[in-house]
């Protein structure tokens, strides 16, 4: 089975079958990560360019490791040190990258829709590594892969996503993916972070943390972006933690075998208590490892679709 598109831009565009196919492919790649020689020759001779217009260590490194383990050559372009600071447009940068021989362009940009624009204008495969407040599809895929690994499947799971839903591309991609695969999603957080219109996506909204966590299988915490402080979204980080921080007592509301996830980087003591982040229920480091397997699957599958 092939994906329908040469690009991976959004979860919204994927069918449930395509998501399932990516997750199954990722299981094969996870086998590779457990070996002494963690490299396969599948994409030998291809070139991947990481084009990051926003600071990122975790996602960029994960894509870089994934690309290298598939034997592609990797070029990292961070815009702070490139000709972008000299005023080059996105499309000119991308065309230059293509002229250098790129087969896959992985892009992160602060403006929503940038990967869509790029995909329409270049022949190489475009993979979205996060666009503005819109989507972060590979994060959702690795989150689903991790849930599947610990819970056996996605269908019928109760998943709580807690925090700044409004500004979170991770939350949006997860909502699309989880609802497509038949999970029940609850959003928990202050009303300023959860616009009512999100109800249209088929989710339940809770402002009370204890009520929202009752009986869930998965607790997915989001990072509170500290730059939102003092802009009227929440009074203070202390008060945020008091109302919506994940403490051991609140974890007790969830199912006994519930898992705790976080896309990182964490703000300990703001959205999550240290003892919870480091507890045996936390799968946060599994998410990091699974991220490599899922991104290998994505790079492998998009390079199989030829125009």
């Amino acid at each position, binding site marked *: 089975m092939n994906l329908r598109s040469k690009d991976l831009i959004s979860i919204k565009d994927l069918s449930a079958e395509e998501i399932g196919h990516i997750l199954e492919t990722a*299981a094969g790649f996870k086998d590779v990560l457990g070996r002494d020689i963690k490299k396969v020759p599948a994409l030998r001779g291809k070139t991947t360019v990481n084009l990051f217009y926003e600071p990122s260590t975790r996602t960029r490194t994960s894509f870089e490791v994934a690309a290298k383990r598939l034997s592609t050559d990797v070029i990292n372009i961070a815009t702070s040190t490139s000709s972008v600071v000299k005023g080059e447009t996105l499309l000119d940068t991308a065309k230059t990258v293509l002229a250098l021989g790129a087969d896959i362009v992985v892009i992160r940009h602060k403006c929503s829709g940038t990967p869509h624009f790029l995909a329409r204008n270049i022949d190489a495969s475009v993979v979205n590594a996060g666009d503005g407040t819109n989507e972060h599809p590979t994060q959702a895929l690795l989150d689903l892969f991790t849930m599947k690994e610990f819970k056996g499947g996605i269908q019928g799971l109760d998943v709580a996503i807690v925090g700044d839903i409004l500004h979170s591309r991770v939350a949006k991609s997860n909502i699309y993916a989880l609802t497509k695969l038949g999970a029940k999603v609850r959003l928990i957080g202050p009303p300023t972070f959860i616009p009512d219109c999100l109800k249209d996506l088929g989710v339940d909204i809770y402002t009370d943390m204890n009520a929202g966590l009752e009986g869930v299988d998965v607790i997915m915490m989001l990072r509170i972006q500290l730059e939102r402080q003092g802009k009227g979204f929440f009074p203070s980080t202390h008060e945020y933690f008091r109302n919506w921080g994940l403490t051991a007592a609140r974890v007790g509301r969830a199912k006994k075998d519930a898992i705790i996830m976080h896309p990182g980087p964490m703000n300990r003591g703001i959205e999550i208590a240290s003892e919870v982040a480091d507890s045996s229920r936390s799968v946060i480091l599994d998410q990091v490892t699974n991220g490599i397997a899922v991104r290998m699957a994505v790079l492998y599958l998009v390079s199989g679709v030829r125009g």
Partner: protein
Amino acid sequence: MPKELLDKKDIERAITRMAHEIIEKNKGIRSICLVGIQQGGVHLANRLSAKLKEIEGSDIPVGILDISLYRDDLNVRKEQPVVRRTQVPCEINDRKVVLVDDVLFTGRSIRAAMDAIIDLGRPSAIQLAVLVDRGHRELPIKADFVGKNIPTSMEETVTVHLAGDGTEDRVVLE
């Protein structure tokens, strides 16, 4: 018109003989590991291991190997091959690995399988067991244990059905 080349009894006899040959060549089964190539070889590897246990009385490790990431046609195929699991339950360093596949044809899968195995470790030897050798090799590769040699034309297809997935044992030429 599909033609049956081997029936249940023929296949049983072939597997029994191959098991004896594996034991004879390796002077027992102590240092060997069977590795079935996804998907056709996996079932045959299980059948061979059951037969080896029946004869020698001890368990033998059986692994499964996916070769899609090692294929030589990834750049020319229209579709990416489906990536399946690779699970080899034993250390293969200094062990004899018997690769198992249902049909030996061009030899390209076996080339890919040998590369995949060597990325897992350094076996003391790699041997090859196939139920059917249909000829038309494109690489210098030869099987050590063959159930049946069957001359075919390039246009024909050989399909191996092994009991377990709801079908009867049989090998069919179409």
